[in-house]
Each structure stands twice: as structure tokens, then as C-alpha cells.
């Protein structure tokens, strides 16, 4: 097993290199660079802009820029953000925790809700509960998340129950620890609901479908014929076998931990990576974009690895040699 993991990690390195090169070239396909936006400001002379460009090697060919970037990366230097006048590492570190908090909370929330509801829907197939949850799932799947977010914000502004976006109240400093926790909890409700709405729907459908598949198997019939109680049949025999597709989904969701919530973050003014990266892409703040793409890539590879390991752990039939 350890051999297998090491091999996967070794394979990941050239993969990441190729990915970074392609990303870097793709970003540079767009015309112009970050400092072009200064060119329409009458207060900037051409010389000043050229000075900026040479300061960050933007006047060199793209491939040379790439190697500058790679060289710095080996020194664990992610580069400098032109947009925020600050090192990329510091900017991302400042926002990373906020995004992780939101993603992890909504991930947990989604799974806690979706798995039991999927099981109920499968067990009570074609009965009222199943139809009702299906309806909710389809609504959740089809409603665009930005629209749902705006609806919830409108609801919040009309009722005044929940805060309108952001992560902390203006008077956060004057609160004690418990109140602070409560304050953040209040702010996290709307974005969590928005992210969970669509994620929940998919997961619930997968859980239902895969459990139904298993319930049709011969060994379930055997279990029932043995006279096992129904809940033992479902929770011990069926669920154990139905969980595999969910583990694979989990691996993919892992890769979305940092970027999956971007749209919701932007609408709900959540101070995470989403709005930061959108601004970075639009302004061609290349090193910040590169850093975020690389993080996404690493998480995707790591997520796949984790889900493969989990699969082997959950299902004794799967072995890696």
C-alpha cells in the first residue's frame, strides 16, 4: 500500500509540471498584461509602465517568465501579486482559512443531510417520502446558486433575521468568544444553504440509486431469507456495498474545497478566495492565478488519492498491488 501511495505521489510531480506550464501559457494567451490597465490613466507615462513591466520580467518571452516562476516556486516563493502589492503567499494565507471554514461546514452539512435522506428515499422507493425528497433534489439541482443566494439575501433583508453577507458583524471586536462564535455561525448560514442546495441534491440521488442497485442483489435476498431484521440488512449488508460511488464523489469534492464556493462567496461577500481569484483573473494578476490553479490541481490529485485509499479501506475486494 505504501509503495502504491509513493508511486502515485511520484507520478503527480510531472503531471503538476505539465499542468502549470499549460496554465501559464493559457493565461498569457489573453492579450496584454496587468499593467495595461494603467495605460488608460493619463497620470502614468509609458516609461513608468515599462519600468513596472521589467521589474516583474513581464517584458520577457512567456517561456522565460515561466522559468522565473518555476525557479521561485522551488524556493517556496509563489511570486508577487501586482494587484494587491503583496506576496501571493500572504494574500492566500489571509483568505484560505475563511474559505476552508465555509467549505468544510457546508461539506459536513451536505453529507449529514444527503446520506440519510438518500437512504430513506431508497428504502421507501416510490412512496411519498421518496417523491418529496426527489422534488427537493430536483429543485436544488436546477436552481442556479447565484439566484438562490440572492433570494436568501432578499429574504434576510426583508425579515432581518440573518445578516446580509459578510463573515463578521461590524461590532465583532466588542464581543466575547462565545458571541463571536455565534456571530460567525449566523453569517455562515446563508452561504452554507446555498452551497449545500445543489451539492445535496446530487449526493442524495447517487446514494438513492446506488442503494437501490444493491438492494436488488442476490445476497440481499439471501440476507433477508436468513431472517435478518430489515435494518440489519440495510445498514450492514446493503449500505456497506453501496458506499463506493460516494467515496469517489468525496474525492472530487475534496478538490473543490478551495474553489467550489467561489460564486457563493462573491455574492454573499464571504471574504474567501473566490472574490480574490475572480479579481485576479480579470486583472491578469498572473502569479496569484497560478497559485490558485496549482492549489486546485494539487487538491484534485490529493482528493483522488484519498478516495482511492478510502475505497481500498472500505471495500476488501479492492486491492492495489
Amino acid at each position, binding site marked *: 500500500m505504501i509503495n502504491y501511495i509513493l508511486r502515485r505521489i511520484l507520478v503527480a510531480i510531472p503531471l503538476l509540471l505539465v499542468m502549470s506550464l499549460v496554465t501559464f501559457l493559457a493565461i498569457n494567451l*489573453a*492579450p*496584454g*498584461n496587468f499593467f*495595461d*490597465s*494603467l*495605460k*488608460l*490613466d*493619463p*497620470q*502614468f*507615462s*509609458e*516609461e*513608468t509602465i515599462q*519600468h*513596472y513591466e521589467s*521589474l516583474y520580467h513581464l517584458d520577457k518571452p512567456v517561456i522565460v517568465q515561466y522559468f522565473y516562476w518555476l525557479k521561485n516556486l522551488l524556493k517556496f516563493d509563489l511570486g*508577487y501579486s501586482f*494587484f*494587491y*502589492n*503583496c*506576496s501571493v503567499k*500572504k*494574500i492566500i494565507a*489571509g*483568505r484560505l482559512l*475563511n474559505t476552508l471554514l465555509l467549505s468544510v461546514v457546508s461539506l459536513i452539512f451536505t453529507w449529514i443531510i444527503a446520506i440519510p435522506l438518500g437512504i430513506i428515499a431508497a428504502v421507501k422507493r416510490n412512496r411519498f417520502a421518496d417523491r418529496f425528497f426527489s422534488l427537493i433534489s430536483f429543485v436544488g439541482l436546477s436552481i442556479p446558486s447565484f439566484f438562490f443566494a*440572492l433570494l436568501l*439575501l*432578499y429574504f434576510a*433583508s426583508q425579515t*432581518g433575521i440573518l445578516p*446580509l*453577507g*459578510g*463573515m*463578521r458583524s*461590524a461590532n465583532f*471586536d466588542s464581543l466575547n468568544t462565545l458571541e463571536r462564535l455565534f456571530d460567525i455561525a449566523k453569517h455562515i448560514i446563508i452561504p452554507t444553504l446555498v452551497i449545500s442546495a445543489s451539492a445535496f441534491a446530487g449526493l442524495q440521488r447517487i446514494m438513492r440509486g446506488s442503494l437501490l442497485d444493491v438492494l436488488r442483489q442476490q445476497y440481499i435476498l439471501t440476507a433477508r431469507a436468513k431472517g435478518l431484521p430489515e435494518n440489519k440488512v440495510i445498514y450492514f449488508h446493503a449500505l456497506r456495498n453501496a458506499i463506493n460511488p460516494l467515496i469517489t464523489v468525496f474525492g472530487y469534492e475534496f478538490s473543490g474545497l478551495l474553489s467550489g464556493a467561489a460564486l457563493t*462567496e*462573491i*455574492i*454573499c*461577500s*464571504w*471574504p*474567501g478566495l473566490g*472574490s*480574490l481569484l475572480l*479579481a485576479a483573473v*480579470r486583472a*491578469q494578476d498572473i502569479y496569484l492565478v497560478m497559485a490558485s490553479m496549482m492549489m486546485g490541481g494539487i487538491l484534485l490529485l490529493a482528493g483522488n488519492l484519498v478516495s482511492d485509499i478510502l475505497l481500498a479501506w472500505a471495500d476488501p475486494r479492492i486491492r492495489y498491488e
Partner: protein
Amino acid sequence: MKKQDKKQNNNNLTFLNNLKKLPFVAVVFLFIFVCISGFAESDKYGGQIVLATTSDPRSFNPVLAKETSTTAITGIIFEGLTRTNGETLEIEPNLAESWEIRQDGLSWVFRLRNDVFWTDGKKFTADDVIFTFNELIYNPNIPNSSRDIFTIEGKTFQLKKIDDYTVEFILPVKFAPFLRSMSQEILPKHALENAVKQNKFNFTWGTDTSPKDIIGTGPYQLKEYFPGERIVLEKNPRYWRVSKDDDRLPYIEKIIYLIVQSQDTDLLKFQDGEIDYYGLRGSDYPLLKPQEKTGNFTIYDTGASFGSNFLVFNLNTSINPKTGRTYIDKNKLSWFLNIDFRKAVAHAIDKQKIIEILMNGLGYEQNSSMSQSSGYFYNPNVTKYNYDLDKAKEILKNAGFFDRNNDGIIEDKDGNKVEFNLFTNSGSTERIQIASIIRKDLQNLGMKVNFMALEFNNLVSKLTSTFDWDAIIIGLTGGIEPHFGKNVWDSSGQLHMWHPKQAKPDTEWEKRVDGIFNQGVQELNDKKRKVLYDEWQYIISEELPVIYTVLPASIFAVRNKFGNLKPTPYGGAFHNLEEIYIKKECRK
């Protein structure tokens, strides 16, 4: 709700108790009132103001970063030697208490205030001024746009320290906007000297700096910054300015900027009472106006704003060295170069319709190159092009453009269909809407216009390097000093969009405009300067290198809790921030 009821009850009780003692209380109050009425006015201190901004500041370093998201913050932390009064637009003393002009405008001697302290307690002196200019702005290792302003014909200002509180600026040539440009923020030598020596200034005072390390002289100092969330500024207790009533300024204790991601969230938060100020788009007006009373705010319409939107045609007659031809098709170029063609277009643009549709009637037609709100140098007497389709068609016909084969599209003398591309930047919905209205207007003239919204950087590279465009709708932020637009109007300027970077002026009128800008910058007599810039605005309106559209009104809603509020289009609602106080009943 419950809590409030309780409070009310309590108040009622105390009120009843007090009722019994009323005569006594009244006498005491009268006595106190008579005694302290002299001080009663100065009970203006305290409270906080909550504002919103849609983007994070990029830096706290005013030399390196000049975007509005940054200057909104650095503008209250730092000060210059002079400042522009937000109401009268006059230049007034700031860190310098007075100045005198010597040698016919080539030497300016500033007498600095000697009661100014940096927020860390060190005294502000002439060394800081000299440091800011010599070590920062003129430092070749620090790219900054201020250097472009303070370099005239390739020469820099010489600074001379006369004593600790007197500085002399020696100019290479006369520079009329000198005093206004002296609003350049002065930075503390003692705090930044080391960073400059180690060549680290370019990375100093970025947004990752600890707030207490950012040292200014302004009315407020940085207290906290949470990226993506909020910026908190608190009163600078050492601030030097006192009010007319001898109150030490500023009055308001704290300024909180909430960072919101979109203007819609901003609006919701304003309606919710969370923030005290909201800058309206025309489309917000019908929504907010009826809520003025219930929401306890007032909407101020201060007049035309400064950001222009205009249509510009490519008049670039230079030869592309790569192809040996002009940058655009020579037929197209010949139409655009035809002044009658541009005049007809100007007559065909329905500015009122743009104002009605885009801004709910809250906008102003723009005819001059300067905004109506820019004060002294604004020339209202320029050629105006009223919306008149018949006249436009007639002008076109006389110039040889009319529909020869009845296909609905006009042709030029050689029978070429008049068809061209119109671009604008995809980031601005306002411009896209203006473009689609103008496109419709031009189609009414029988022109075929293909409209496309491009990414901003793509548009910029077309404007400044590839020159392969026909017509563009773009805008510039204007100001009150015409000289700062020189890069646009001078024919050698990079932003002379219709024909940039000319070796020598291509047309007679461009030659005259170059002359005006060269003369205007050296003319110290304001009246004579005005004559010059009036002529420039007139020439532009006659020659139409750019066809102006509309200026949105500068309207904003402010919660009814402030005293001393004097909103203006130039300064906005809070240009006199340090004098504004929160009314006692609104303070918590």
C-alpha cells in the same frame, strides 16, 4: 423588540419620578444651561460612521498605489502640503501654513506647520518633505506615477531645506498646476528610510503590513484591516486641525469601511441600515426615493459627475511599418477624417434618450471636454450638437454619403457601404448600454454598425499598440485641472487615442491644442489660463475628435445623522470628514 419595550418602560418610570421634582429640576437645568452654554456647541465628539467599498485597498502606500480603492483610505491617513477645498475647489493650506512665490514662479517657498505630529509621536519637519520627493518620488528604483507629474520636460524639482519648517522648491520651468499638485501625500522619513536604503520600498506598506506601522499625519489612523471584510480607522488624537470653535478635530471616533463584493449587496446593506452612505446609480433612484422618510436618509443630487463616456473614431493616418499601409482600411479612414461625417454622427446621438433609459433622467448632456462640475476652467460656450436626425442626414448627403441603391445602407462617393465596428469594454454595463443606443442611432442614419464588447485589456492594447479599431466608446475620469489631461490632448501623447504618439501634429487644430497645453502649463495668471483652456474646449467641440455623450449625476444617499455635511460633486459627501460630527441623538 422586548428589550426595547422594557427600556421604554424604564424611561417612562424615571420620567414620572422626575415629574414630581420638576420645578427643582427645571431651575437646576436652567442654571447649568446658562453656565455651560458656551461649551454646549462642542459636544459633538464620538460615534462612528460605516461606509462600504466594493474592492479591497491594494496597498496602504500612497506613492505606489493610486486606485480609488486605495486612495479612499490613504487620503484620510496622509496629507499633503496643500489640499483642494471640496466645496469651493480652491487650493487651501494643509501641512504648509503659507507659501510665497519667488523669481516669477520658478521658486516656491513653503512655510510648514510646526504643530504637526506623526501618529507615532515624532514631529513632522521639512526633512519629511524632502525625503518624500528626493528619496521616494524621484527614486529611479521606485516606479510611480507621481514622478510623471513632477517631471517637466525631463527635469525634476530641486528641493532645498531652509530650516526645519521651511522648504524651497526650485522649478525647471514655470508650472501652473504646481500648488494643486502639492497635495501629494508626504510620508515619514524616520519610518521609511531603512526600507528605501535596503531597496525594499516597493514592497513596503502593502496590505499585509501591521496597521500600527502605517504612520501618517491625517485625521484618522489605520486600526485594523481584515482582507475582504473591513477596514477600521480610528481618530488620530494628535491631529493638528482645530475647528472655528476651537474644537480639536476630528469629531467622529471611528470609520468603518465594509468591503462588499457587489453594488447590490451595498444597496441591501444600506436599506438595512447597516451602512450610512450609498452612491446611487440612476436605476436605484425610483427604489430609494420613496424610502427616504422611513429609512431616515436624504438623497443628495449634487450635479454632474466627472467620469465621461465618449465615442471616438480612429483618425490614425500613420503608416503601419509592418504592412506599409494605414492601420485601418483607407476608405473607413477617409470617412472618419471627414469632419462632416463626425458632425453628422454627433447630431444623430440622442443624449436625452441615454439619460432617460440608463439614468432615469438623472444625467447631464456633455458637450465640453470638462465636466460642468469642474468649476473655473469649464467652458459652457462650446459648439453643441442637438439631436436632429434630419440635419444629420442632410450633412451626410452634402458630404456625399447617401443610400444610392435603396438597400437601407448609405454609401460613400465611391459606392462603398458605410459599415464599421464599434467596440467598448465588457466590464462596464453602462458603456455597453450607451453603445447599443448609439448603434441604434447610427443605424437610423443608414450606417451599418457591428458592435462588440471586448475585455478591457484587449481594448487597451488596440488603443495603445495595435491601432486596429474603427470606433470605440470609452471614458476617462476627469478632474478640475485641465493640464493633468495633457497625455490625452497633446498630439504626442500616448492617450491621444484617435491618433496617438504623433511625431508632429497631423492637423492645424492639433497643432493649436498642443500650443495651448504648452502655454497653459506655464501661464500663472488664472484669467489668461482660462482663456487658453476655453479655446481648447471650443476647438475640441468644433473638430470632434471625441464625441461626448452624457455625464451621470453624482447622487448619493446619506443617513440623517450627520452635522456639518456639505455634499459636492467633486468632494462627495465626506470631503470635510474631520469637521463632520454625528448628531447627539444618533450617537450610541
